[in-house]
């Protein structure tokens, strides 16, 4: 990653313009040619630094209901339980963590009823209690990483 990549990634995290030539707007602001920007973005995507370039939506405002769940899964059952949990497309993130509750996942569904049903199904399939911790107040969601030449 060189200075040009860093400038590009910092800009892309804030978002491109909604004009017909967003990368031309970006080129003018960064002082890098549009051609270079396009080529670099594809290279950064190929190298896996960019997970996705696209719409970043606000899921509550999109009408979605979500929650963070945790389960205490016995070591030997982790693969099987993970498979059951991950089978839902509504489960977007799932991590094993170093806590008594060792499996943590987020569920985002199109209604509160769907959300409840999924949690109940996971509990009844696995026989393990699912604790649900929905948001009461959002203070911050800003997944932008300040990049500099140390990286």
């Amino acid at each position, binding site marked *: 990653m060189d200075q040009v990549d860093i400038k590009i990634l910092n800009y892309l995290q804030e978002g491109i313009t909604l004009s017909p030539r967003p990368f031309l707007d970006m080129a003018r602001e960064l002082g890098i040619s549009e051609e270079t920007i396009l080529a670099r973005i594809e290279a950064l995507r190929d190298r896996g630094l960019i997970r996705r*370039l696209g719409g970043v939506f606000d899921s509550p405002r999109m009408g979605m209901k979500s929650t963070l769940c945790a389960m205490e899964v016995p070591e030997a059952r982790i693969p099987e339980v993970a498979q059951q949990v991950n089978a839902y497309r509504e489960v977007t993130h799932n991590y*094993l*963590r170093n806590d008594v509750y060792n499996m943590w996942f987020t569920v985002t569904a199109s209604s509160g009823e769907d959300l409840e049903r999924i949690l109940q199904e996971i509990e009844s399939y696995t026989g393990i209690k699912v604790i649900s911790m929905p948001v009461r107040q959002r*203070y911050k969601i800003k997944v932008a990483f300040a990049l500099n030449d140390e*990286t």
Partner: protein
Amino acid sequence: MTRHDIIDRVIKELQGDLPAVYRPYQVVAERTGLSEEEVISVLNGLREKGMLKRIGAVLRHQKVGYDANAMVVWKVAEEDMDRVGNLMAACPLVSHCYWRETPAGWPFNIFTMVHARSHQELQAVIHELSCKSGIGEYRVIESVRELKKTSVQYR
């Protein structure tokens, strides 16, 4: 096609990957059977409603140097929630800060995601957040393994 269908198509397309080409919204237009102007107008509408935060990049944070990450959960009194929530939110290395409803037996109600470039930096940030907020009861929950990471399917 109703306005609702048009919006649905654009959302469906934009939750995927946008190509890096001179006129990316023209590509979306071709894929959705709309005009470029219509696509941009829908996007502006979604942004005004707060449904679309931006068209931008989501990075793999480990690959860009932020490979020391933790979920840190804090025990905060209800009347103190906004002060602590806003204080933690102001830290640039905190990406998410939420007050969550928690069940009996789980006293930690402020959830933060902290990202740093080294384990040392991570420890330092957590220590600083604790000192600044005056919250001494917290737990650092690190991820051992990623089992799944995808995007929300809206449509």
